[in-house]
């Protein structure tokens, strides 16, 4: 399923297919709409988001006692094996399998690097006295998989004035694989950029890949990759490195999952999908503070940054939201509500689920979050990732339509106070009744008509499976570019290949406005109006009806200016003819508007 992720169809065509599928779900047996999509051979790696543990969260924290021998000193053979033991015992039955060693395995306590005679990273004897192969063997002996880590590029410490020979590459030295000007690369400028025009360069990557394969590693996190990692420009473009890694792994004789980090550039998503099995969409989730993470820095960023990437996740490659640190309670640095929301978003966005917690010290609530089989099934099952169906306002609803006709629906309250959050069935495409199962609380809540409303704590969430018992919603489309509409200020028409009918209204800034005229509804009420829009960054618009008071909504980025997406906004309309206005309001910028769909009944 989710063939769309790898489709080369233009987005516009794709969206039409999805709409048809949604509608068909009501008319016929639900799975029929999905049948044609599930026939591809599953990829050998990352068929599902991977699950496991990573060492970095505890390494990066100032939590008392975690790093007794200086920064990042949590990373030791003993600690890795201790966590592997705990993972095997407590979490493996739920699907967690990767034990991932992060940065520093080749560094001493003062972060001084060790290299072998071929310029390859070598285990620090104090951190890993038994060596990396022995650690992988021990991890495998528990039925788990082993992960390891490298920064992208030729690390400066491996260069050795260009004299170090490359393993299994006669005549090649480190001097052959870098640029003459020794330009640096990666997120920290800690490496020389590799010049892949020299055949020796691929050999160097091959030598590293072979080493990991020989040691028995199943996973590699390649870090500091650009464009991304807060860098841009040719010097930091590591697409060739990533491609070389894919090639090297293919010949190394062992499947190795290749994960890229961090804040990968959306514009190169095609490359990341082509060459890797997953990509971190954001900066580190860790706070580098006295806990592992904090809500503001930077767990909450994912709600705003993930939506644009949603369509790119699928078997073989997933949007990586970073570690899931919800298991330890106080050390996590989050409230219970925040921990649940964190786990909810990671699950429904189909992010890899790897915790950075101390698995030996999971509290009972944390264990319940990490081991809820229904929630894990959302993440691991044959279901698409959820995306917002409402704007990026403090109260949000995310949803995904599942192959069986049900919907995964998450309510989020990102405000700092408790608030009621409603999911309107209209935003899922149907009206009438639906039965609701509460996944975190493992209970059926009964039947709800048109919507469900729940009180959520500050930063809280709910996660439901909604089974429609109603009828498909029909709506009327109004193109933004229609001649009947009124454009004011800077607003203007533009061509748009991703848009329905190929046109949109843009330049909504500095008070520019689009008013959609002649919106006809039969009865007065609040309507969930679907707004199709394009926005390369997150923008807000004031939306009002009939010249009345406006409500400001923030639209998530669609990733770039060639991709359309849609969310639903509630608009109160009167019976008969209405106007709906999108106002960039003052100095601000609003998204470009493709069209709106107004349901034929209110909610």
């Amino acid at each position, binding site marked *: 399923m989710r063939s769309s992720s790898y489709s080369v169809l233009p987005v516009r065509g794709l969206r039409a297919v999805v709409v048809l599928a949604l509608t068909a779900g009501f008319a016929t047996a639900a799975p029929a709409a999905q049948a044609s999509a599930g026939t591809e051979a599953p990829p050998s790696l990352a068929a599902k988001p991977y699950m496991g543990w990573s060492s970095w969260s505890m390494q990066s924290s100032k939590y008392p006692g975690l790093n007794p021998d200086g920064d990042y000193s949590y990373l030791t053979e003993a600690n890795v094996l201790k966590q592997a033991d705990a993972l095997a015992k407590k979490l493996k039955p739920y699907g967690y399998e990767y034990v991932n060693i992060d940065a520093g395995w080749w560094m001493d306590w003062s972060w001084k690097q060790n290299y072998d005679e071929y310029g390859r990273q070598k285990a620090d004897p104090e951190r890993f006295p038994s060596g990396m192969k022995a650690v992988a063997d021990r991890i495998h002996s528990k039925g788990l998989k082993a992960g390891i880590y490298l920064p992208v590029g030729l690390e400066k410490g491996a260069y050795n004035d260009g004299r170090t020979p490359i393993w299994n590459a006669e005549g090649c030295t480190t001097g052959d694989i870098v640029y003459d000007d020794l330009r640096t690369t990666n997120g920290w400028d800690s490496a020389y950029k590799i010049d892949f025009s020299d055949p020796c360069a691929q050999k160097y990557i091959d030598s590293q890949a072979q080493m990991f394969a020989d040691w028995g590693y199943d996973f590699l996190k390649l870090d500091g990759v650009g464009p991304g990692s807060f860098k841009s420009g040719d010097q930091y473009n590591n697409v060739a490195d990533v491609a070389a890694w894919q090639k090297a792994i293919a010949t190394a004789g062992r499947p190795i999952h290749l994960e890229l980090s961090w804040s990968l550039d959306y514009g190169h998503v095609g490359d990341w999908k082509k060459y890797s099995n997953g990509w971190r969409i954001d900066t580190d989730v860790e706070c580098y503070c006295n806990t592992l993470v904090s809500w503001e820095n930077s767990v909450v960023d994912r709600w705003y940054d993930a939506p644009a990437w949603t369509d790119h996740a699928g078997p073989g490659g997933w949007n990586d939201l970073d570690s899931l640190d919800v298991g330890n309670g106080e050390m996590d640095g989050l409230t219970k509500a925040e921990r649940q929301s964190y786990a909810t978003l990671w699950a429904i966005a189909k992010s890899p689920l790897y915790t950075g917690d101390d698995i030996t010290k999971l509290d009972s609530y944390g264990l319940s979050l990490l081991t809820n089989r229904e929630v894990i099934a959302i993440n691991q099952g044959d279901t698409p990732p959820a995306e917002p169906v409402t704007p990026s306002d403090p109260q949000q609803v995310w949803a995904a339509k599942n192959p069986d006709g049900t919907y995964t629906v998450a309510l989020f309250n990102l405000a700092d106070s408790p608030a*009621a959050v409603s999911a309107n069935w209209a935003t899922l495409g149907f009206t009438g009744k639906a039965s609701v199962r509460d996944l975190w609380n493992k209970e059926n809540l009964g039947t709800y008509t048109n919507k469900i409303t729940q009180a*959520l*704590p500050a930063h809280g969430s709910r996660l439901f499976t909604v089974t429609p018992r109603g009828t498909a919603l029909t709506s009327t489309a109004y193109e933004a570019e229609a001649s009947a509409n009124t454009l004011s200020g800077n607003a203007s028409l533009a061509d748009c290949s991703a848009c329905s009918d190929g046109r949109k209204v843009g330049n909504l800034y500095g008070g520019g406005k689009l008013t959609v005229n002649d919106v006809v509804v039969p009865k007065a009420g609040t309507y969930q109006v679907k707004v199709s829009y394009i926005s390369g960054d997150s923008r807000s618009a004031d939306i009002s009806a009939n010249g009345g008071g406006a409500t400001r909504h923030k639209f998530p980025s669609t990733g770039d200016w060639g991709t359309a997406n849609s969310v639903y906004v509630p608009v109160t309309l009167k019976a008969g003819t209405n106007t709906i206005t999108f106002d960039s309001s003052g100095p601000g910028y609003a998204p470009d508007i493709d069209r709106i769909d107004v349901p034929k009944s209110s909610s």
Partner: protein
Amino acid sequence: MNRRSPDPSRRTLLSLATTGSLAAVLGSLPAFTASAAPQRPTTSPLLAGSARSELWWQAPGDESSLIEQGLPVGNGRIGALASNDPGRELLLITDATMWTGGLNDTLDADGQFPYGRADFGSFTLLARLTVDIPDHDLSAVSGYRRTLDLSQGLVTSSYVRSGVTYSRQIYASLPDDVIVLHFTQSGGGRYTGSVTLGGTHGEKSSQAESFGASLANGLRYGAAVKAYGTGGKVAVNGTRIDFSGCKKLTVVVSGGTNYVPDAAANYRNPSLDPEQLARTKVRNAAEHSADTLLRTHVADYRALYEQLGLSLGTSTAAQRELDTWERLKARARDGVPDPELEAAYLQFGRYLMISGSRGSLPLGLQGLWLDGNDPDWMGDYHTDVNIQMNYWMADRTALSQCFDAFTDYCHAQLPSWTKLTQSLFNDPRNRYRNSTGKIAGWTVAFSTNPYGGNGWWWHPAGNAWLCNSLYEHYEYTQSREHLAKIYPLLKGACEFWEARLLTTTLPGSTEEVLIDDSDWSPEHGPQDAKGITYAQELVWALFGNFCAASAELKKDTGYADTIAGLRRKLYLPQVSPKTGWLEEWMSPDNLGETTHRHLSGLVGLFPGDRIRPDGSTPKNIVDGATAQLTARGMESFGWANAWRSLCWARLKDADKAYQLVVNNLRPSTDGSNGTAFNLFDIYEVEQGRGIFQIDANFGTPAAMIEMLLYSRPGHLELLPALPAAWAASGHVTGVAARGGFVVDLDWRDGKPASARIRSVGGRTTTVAYAGVHRTVTLEPGESVTLRDFAR
């Protein structure tokens, strides 16, 4: 229901007490004292669901934002804000007398008063109560609903956990003098958790069921809690009370201080141990079933609540479907009137008054409700509009009894106010001192506390405004006891002005007039202006009120003649030839801020009654007042909008009066001006920082009534400013009218359908609508119903 209960009400008892000796006063006046045995209703006073008038919400309050999200309860003396979170009920508990500070009688170098939390003092929290139910985390429950039942005086919440419906009720009972939390369930559920009571002033808690301590000013205070359940176990465990497996749980809390409203006793009762008294109160209450406590409270509450009946029209089904917060947002966004919401906003003000002003200190800037110990402006009594505004609605909305706390306060403070005025006002450093060199009577500063103390700057005309408010209550009620009680305040204020007024001759005239000495028109412009309109108007009204009181009580007739003579010579403001406005200063120039929040130069329009748009006031004066009011604008914040609305109602401009009410109903978000989630009024004091100020919650209802009925002794006018939004049909019953009447009014299609006029002491009055006047003559207790106003 009876609107004037024939039962021997608490108010009657209090009134009797005030006529007795000082000992009798101490024995029964506002203080934390032993309660008389509550009167228990013999029939159930509980209302069926359909008869209830409820505000409702779909989310609990945030612990750190209770001032905007907590629901208030109070019995007029003790109050609380409740979070209603399923997993952790939090109550921030207050006692109206829980004040730091003291007499504050050492002036600063500028001859004004210090204004800090230690010297002047501040209203602070009494206690903090939590009921933790760990298994009922908000994330684990569904169908959460929370209500404020205006018709029964109850805060409720309910939710479903694993198929069991859990409900809780919270209220503050005056008869039992406790706050009650009652937890029930249906479906076989159980409550397990703990109750914790503690202080907020760093007290060391050593036991679970009570605590007591003293503030730095010597005020003793204490609180106590008792919990009892059905079908489970309730036991003290160290500093908390644990409960487990309870089918039902009842928690009762009480507390108080050893404050007494008696200057001679230094405002303390040294023999009172508040902790022990609180223990006695909760023990006595806990001897009764939760049902008995509830019925007793609801009967007591309904007796006051139902003194007013109100309908402003019918809302739509779509509006009724929305919870209160959504409804406020929809009202502001859609611009469509929501008459039931608007009526509920008025009734919410009455709920706050019933909950916040009975048998203790009066309502200050935040009423009885706090979320910390550092309320802005100390949560004090501001005498240049705020405390007066708090009580403008008392008589208008049929809560005459709730006014008494204001009267009692002024009465108890008078000895201290007099002493401070006479010893400090003419301090040579005080820029507002009497240049006559004479001093007599009393006045106050802009802020007052309950210890006889003043704060911030002297406010010469504050005495007149307080007195005029107190006198107006007499005009409504015709209570001679009340008049006798406030008479010393009126007389002392007159004496102050007799000593202060300056004689001057107007330019181009030989006519001598009396004017105020150097003064400040609140709260802008020059601080050394003579003859400010604010003072001239207030003193003119004061002198008139004193003369009327003297005549009614047959006291000091000679002195009343003197005051009447002074009154005739008082300068009254002119219209500026430059601005066309009624002058706020004795100057044609606008010396202040055009859109300033205060309407100090318009006190003669409202709350004063000198400027009338009925032909009895020169047209140019009415036009000048209208022009100044217009210039002040429509976009201020809570109390300033309410005051503007009252002025526009007086000018019979229904659209503007109504728009200002609507402006106050705008939802407050991120601290913006408007109405918070819990309907408290929020004032944005700086970008993004909104604070609670209760005045608009009372001033706005007063304006709504003023739009429906204007009154002055001898004259009533029906529907003077009825807005189109309410015009279709409506009624109001129980509205007090100056002159000693109570009016029940029905209207249809914007015109009165019937008006019942009942005398509570008034004898004769004209009743006007649209230029038609009728004269009604009644004996006290009699009533007449008038019809056929519409032509």
